[in-house]
């Protein structure tokens, strides 16, 4: 028998501070899929805020930290398409040839959790039950940079009792955009308000997505509008951990 793959979990700074349960759900799923999981201590942020603001040096410094912490693993897996998208872009931040090679090596083995479970590990949920109706939003980075589209839907299909409802404009940005949402709050609000109207229109009890930033944006707007929709990361549902408080609900 071959050795189980050794996966380094990239927690992401948002999950670390805002919703640790997503990190634990990711570990649980990876272990169910037959991986050995470790959480390197020398990790913080993938560098998106700097990278997206034009601070190449700042982004490169964080990139090197991530590369050094994760290059020894078979895979880097994170519960976020946008962080993995950033990690896959590390080679473009490196001016030095040897760092560029190391960046390319890591980029080639970095995956978003749902794509990883389905495409790489061939995992399917077994005996997971959630009696609820839900709708799914495609987070843009996962969708367009990593091709995460069919995988989460196929995995959610395997959850007993879960009724999935189509979301109008599921592939349209929610208006989060990282620092965009606080630099241009009015535009961001207009965008997320259209999204929340579409979500409410589905009548689904739950909103699921694969990126905590987008989820916080949509959940925050839905709650401000008085909507009852409860928001979870897809990994929480698949790990059978969506029976507790949703995003923003008091523990």
């Amino acid at each position: 028998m071959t050795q189980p793959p050794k996966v380094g979990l990239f927690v992401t700074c948002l999950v670390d501070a805002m919703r640790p349960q997503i990190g634990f759900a990711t570990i649980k799923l990876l272990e169910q899929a037959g991986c050995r999981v470790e959480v390197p201590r020398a990790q913080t942020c993938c560098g998106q805020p700097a990278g997206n603001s034009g601070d190449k040096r700042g982004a490169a410094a964080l990139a090197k930290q991530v590369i050094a912490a994760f290059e020894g693993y078979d895979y880097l897996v994170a519960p976020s398409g946008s962080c993995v998208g950033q990690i896959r872009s590390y080679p473009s931040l490196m001016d030095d040839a040897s760092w560029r090679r190391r960046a390319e090596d890591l980029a080639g083995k970095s995956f978003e959790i749902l794509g990883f479970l389905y495409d790489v590990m061939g995992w399917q949920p077994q005996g997971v039950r959630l009696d609820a109706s839900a709708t799914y939003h495609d987070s843009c980075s996962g969708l367009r940079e990593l091709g995460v589209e069919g995988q989460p839907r196929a995995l959610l299909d395997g959850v007993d009792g879960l009724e999935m409802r189509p979301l109008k404009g599921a592939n349209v940005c929610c208006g989060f955009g990282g620092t965009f949402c606080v630099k241009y709050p009015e535009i961001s609000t207009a965008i997320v308000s259209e999204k929340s109207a579409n979500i409410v229109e589905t009548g689904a009890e739950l909103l699921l997505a694969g990126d905590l930033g987008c989820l916080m944006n949509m959940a925050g707007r839905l709650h401000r509008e008085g909507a009852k929709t409860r928001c979870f990361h897809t990994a929480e549902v698949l790990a059978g951990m969506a029976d507790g408080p949703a995003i923003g609900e008091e523990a």
Partner: protein
Amino acid sequence: MADAAFKTRAHDALADANLKTAIDRTTGTAETKRAAAVDAFPEFQAARARAAAIKDHVIANLDHYLIAFEQNATAAGAQVHWARDAAEAAAIVSRICSDAGAKIVTRAKSMLGEEIGLPHALDDAGIERVETDLAEHIIQLAHERPSHIIWPAMHRTREDVAALFFKDHHPPPDADDAASMVASARRVLREKFLAADVGISGANFLVADTGATCTVTNEGNAELSTTPPRVHIVTAGIEKIVPSTDHAMALLRVLVRSATGGEVTQYTTFHCGPRRAGDADGPEEMHIVLVDNGRARMVGDEFRQMLRCIRCGACMNHCVVYRQIGGHAYGGTYPGPMGAVLTPVLDGLAQSRDLPHACTMNGRCEEVCPVRIPLKTLLKAWRLRTWDEGLVEKPVRYGLGLWGFAACRPRLYRMGTRMALPVLRLFGRGWIRKLPLAGGWTATRDLPAPAARSFMDQYERQQKEARK
């Protein structure tokens, strides 16, 4: 970052419910029709790749094809003029008009014409300028600039247009339905088409091996603007060149589907030189003004791929920001994602520093771009320049610097998190409704309160327990 002017324009646009109605009607229809056209054309992805390759080839050999075009256009009897920048281009056109003793000039819609400030230049020269594209006619009556590169009057609802026509058409339209209004515009414009001394058009393609210019329209106004007058002037950016008519056709296949969802435009006309002996009609003189205005420089820098753009408008039709604020808020000639890349080239980065940042980087624009321009990458390249040139606001700069300092020191970062989380939780358990310094978020959204203990803290504790 906040360029006050951009934020103010965006704020005003967001407050205009009528504008939002107009944007939704037009872009919504465009999105649906494009999707249907792409579905009905199985070779679309291959056609896109070919279109991008054609443009890349031309950009790499621009000098060669421009010289060939000039030779062949001249041989066909046209006069070719070269303009380094907008002012020079507008001056050349004005001079040709005054040499021709022009009193009335008809114009077929051209964004390049807007880019070089032609409407103003003609007005300043005291020439009666008649915009003949229906939407351009509307914004001429409203004294506005185009808000979209395909539908210049897309910010105006049908109801707005009726009001304009009833005020400015003499006699006014028979009724306020679309057919009556179009008939009225046709009456008004028809007189001008026949009375014009000079007709000015743009070009969708400049065909190198024949010297022809090509216009595509759905109203036939380009043909009526370029055939009856004595003089036809074409203004075109130098990137519009294609090697041959076949290449123009290959680009048309993706251009029209991406722009309107049609398979082909109603009118696709190749203009090759002025009227020849024995021709039934056509202008006595044909002038072609080739405009650089920053393009040659782009060939050599990181914005080179932007020269692929064939001006279809799909990127803005699919842009969440454009669909909220419309075209005028961008403040340049070209709006939306392609405008956010081009405006800093044309107007300078300091003038337009917000544009590359006012984007969520969702990537839908490049997904639909018919020539596969990596718009996100190009917008990021502008962001790098705003950072390097000190155009990023100091609080953002310092904030990111501080964050970066801590994030590069995991132990310090962890300590910071441990202290910050309980403080944040003082503002609310569950949901935070108001948070100092985070008004951008909490003005319109609740913020989920953070965890009591970070993932890393919880995980490390678990690991310790397990080892016991």
